[in-house]
């Protein structure tokens, strides 16, 4: 009987999670951020507190989804994120990957899809945190480098969009260009989700047969040397690094959860 109810429950709980997420975004925008701008004058401090608020909200949200039984998760190596000025690159199996990563990083900056800056539920937080938008043109690479050098932990999904269900992963070269031209070392994060849910091209109510099980593994840094950019070989180096990252993420994401 309980087993029979499990799936309908998770469909309901997933819908509830979406609703909570949207309302949370609205509440931050209409209540919290106006108060923040009222009581904190310094824009730098406003931004820092806004990012911290999103971090804690996402932390709560992940715990909430776990309590509802929508997902389970394991974390590995997250102590490596307790540094500053990191370029954090992750693969992108599901919709809530960024929620996980920001819940683990208090001083996160990230590159977000420009349309989210106009969405009523996500607009408030994205503007208040001054996360970088992906439509800002050629200057984006330099903005990203500046963010890392300023001590933020910049989170990017080099795939740009979620991995399709067939596992055919394609990486854009922007993230590698940031690493090469910074230069910035890379802190790779492998996100695995089994069974896969909240994927691209699948409606949210098609919940998988079991609760999603996430394993998030922070790996050792990949060192990026300054030589290539200095020798004017940045474009080539970014191509090679992208190939290397592609192989790395593909191998990492195909290991089985629990193996």
């Amino acid at each position, binding site marked *: 009987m309980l087993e029979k109810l499990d799936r309908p429950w998770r469909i309901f709980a997933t819908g509830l999670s979406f609703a909570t997420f949207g309302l949370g975004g609205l509440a931050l925008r209409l209540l919290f951020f106006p108060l923040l701008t009222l009581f904190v004058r310094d824009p730098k401090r406003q931004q820092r507190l806004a990012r911290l608020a999103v971090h804690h909200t996402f932390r709560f949200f992940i715990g909430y989804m776990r309590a509802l039984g929508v997902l389970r998760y394991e974390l590995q190596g997250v102590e490596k994120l307790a540094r500053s000025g990191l370029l954090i690159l992750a693969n992108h199996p599901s919709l809530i990957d960024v929620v996980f990563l920001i819940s683990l990083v208090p001083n996160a900056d990230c590159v977000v899809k420009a349309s989210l800056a106009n969405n009523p539920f996500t607009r408030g937080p994205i503007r208040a945190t001054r996360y970088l938008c992906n439509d800002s043109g050629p200057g984006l*690479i330099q903005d990203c480098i500046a963010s890392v050098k300023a001590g933020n932990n910049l989170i990017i999904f080099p795939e740009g969009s979620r991995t399709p269900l067939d596992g055919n992963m394609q990486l854009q070269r922007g993230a590698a260009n940031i690493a090469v031209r910074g230069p910035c070392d890379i802190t790779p994060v492998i996100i695995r989700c089994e069974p896969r849910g909240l994927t691209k091209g699948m409606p949210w109510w098609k919940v998988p047969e079991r609760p999603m099980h996430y394993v998030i593994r922070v790996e050792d840094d990949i060192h990026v040397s300054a030589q290539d950019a200095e020798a004017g070989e940045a474009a080539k180096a970014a*191509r090679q690094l992208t190939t290397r990252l592609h192989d790395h993420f593909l191998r990492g994401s195909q290991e089985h959860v629990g193996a």
Partner: protein
Amino acid sequence: MTKHELFERLSAILQETFDIEPSRIIPEARLHDDLDIDSIDAIDLLVRLKPIAGQRVPPEVFRSVRTLQDVVDALYGLLGSDSAAA
């Protein structure tokens, strides 16, 4: 400089800067779809073309460019307008 010479210079730049195999470098090749030149590469390319054009290449000139032949034509136009002015 003839269009042929311009194409040769462009070909050399594409090989050196982006490691593109010479066999793929044909006038009809599309920068984005065939040669995988993204917006970041395009900026690098403009910088490398500057010595050939003898001037900063305005990004507007490149907005309508799709193929390598379009690049050559745009460069040729820039050089032509220059000598006409002089």
